[in-house]
């Protein structure tokens, strides 16, 4: 690391807050004589569940009252953490940056002189305080929820005790005859496409087919896969079309839907 992260954390007016606890001992700064692998720090920083979690941590560690959120201090510390995360090239979720902007906005609003005629105006911190309190409640609830007895962890159900099935007169399930007819139709249609003849190879390239698909397809409506097949292209055409579709899905240009295995496949432009 070229920048020593402790510069960010230990600015003089800050109360020391541990970065993390290692074996019960608070890690307040990164010891300069000890090489802390960036990966380890990454894990510490990644353990926050999001910007609200990070803010709550900063508030709680310093025994601040949420209701009297010291925005200036918290913002500064928050920005230091963000800086640290950026230094470590952690992929910063957009939510962290959004929160940074929110904090900056609140901070600047707090600096504006309060007009006596605007007394009714909301405290700019109010919404954030509400969100923090709400998040804290559910964070706590999740911890409590995790601690109540759970099956196969704290107690054990006795289920599925085996038994020897006695023989029953089995009546086989009927097949749906209409479905049977539809299936035969499908086979015949499929077969038509597959059994076409005399295709000259090399005529069809996957690239070309991709272009064709992009050209003919709409981004509004889904098109059924078999409708883009050309009978004269036969089996080879089917394969090339399938490859083209797969390729287009891979690069994210088209969207593909299939309700269940073997059902029709629908595609549309993204």
């Amino acid at each position, binding site marked *: 690391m070229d920048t020593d992260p402790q510069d960010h954390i230990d600015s003089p007016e800050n109360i020391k807050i541990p970065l993390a606890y290692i074996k019960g001992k608070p890690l307040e700064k990164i010891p300069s004589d000890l090489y802390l692998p960036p990966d380890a720090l990454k894990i510490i920083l990644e353990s926050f*569940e*999001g*910007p*609200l*979690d990070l803010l709550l941590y900063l508030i709680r560690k310093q025994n601040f009252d949420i209701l009297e959120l010291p925005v200036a201090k918290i913002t500064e510390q928050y920005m230091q953490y963000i800086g640290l995360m950026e230094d470590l090239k952690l992929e910063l*979720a957009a*939510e962290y940056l959004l*929160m940074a902007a929110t904090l900056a906005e609140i901070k600047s609003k707090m600096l504006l002189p309060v007009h006596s005629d605007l007394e009714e105006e909301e405290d700019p911190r109010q919404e954030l305080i*509400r*969100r923090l*309190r*709400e*998040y804290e*409640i*559910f*964070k*706590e*609830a*999740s*911890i*409590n*929820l*995790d601690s*109540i*007895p*759970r*099956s*196969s*962890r*704290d*107690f*054990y*159900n*006795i*289920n*599925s*005790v*085996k*038994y020897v099935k006695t023989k029953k007169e089995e009546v086989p399930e009927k097949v749906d005859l209409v479905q049977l007819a539809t299936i035969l139709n499908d086979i015949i249609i499929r077969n038509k496409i597959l059994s076409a003849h005399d295709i000259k190879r090399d005529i069809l390239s996957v690239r070309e087919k991709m272009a064709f698909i992009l050209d003919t397809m709409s981004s509004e409506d889904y098109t059924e896969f078999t409708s883009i097949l050309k009978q004269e292209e036969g089996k080879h055409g089917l394969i090339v079309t399938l490859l083209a579709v797969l390729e287009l899905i891979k690069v994210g240009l088209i969207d593909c839907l299939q309700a269940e295995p073997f059902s029709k496949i629908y595609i549309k432009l993204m």
Partner: protein
Amino acid sequence: MNKEEQKKVIESIIFSSPSPVSVDSIHNFLSKEHDINRDTVKELLASIESEHENTPVILKKVASGYIFQISEKYSEWVTNFYPDKPQKYSRAFMETLALIVYKQPITRSEIEAVRGVAVSHNIMKNLLELEWIKILGNKEVPGRPMLYGTTKKFLDSHNLNSLSGLPEIKDVDTSQNTENSEQTQINLNISEGNGENDNNLDDFDNIH
């Protein structure tokens, strides 16, 4: 078939079942061939329950019915017998679950609003696969997002009869509630819906 025999049939059914067995399903089954009423089934279950009281195997009533369980006293032995540690769920998983449990019916974006981060697809998939949550319907707002709630299986997995058995949560301050009158309304709509959900949602109402 005398009562002792009936009890043994009921025991066999509960032992062999992969999930808790409801009074109704036992009653439906036995009444096909015998003249037996629902209250008698309940009496028989109570009798089985008391007979097992001080044995390593106890009969337990949970949300979706009756199931045999290793008694608390011997659970620790069982835990120690198996070298594999039971699955631990991530914080993100538990927080998402907590929001669904306490704020159901809730949409994914409502969960995200409280947590301040996106809910991963995997967590929702996992919860749905565990059958701890289910889709209750769609919220009548643009986009008609899906509304999630907990299932009986979630309660079963925590030895609960209803949501009211869960730890209480602190009140999110009252300003929040009035602001969210819309949600209360949706709540009502769903509880009118389908039979099975009713209990869950009623219980949910009780919490608040």
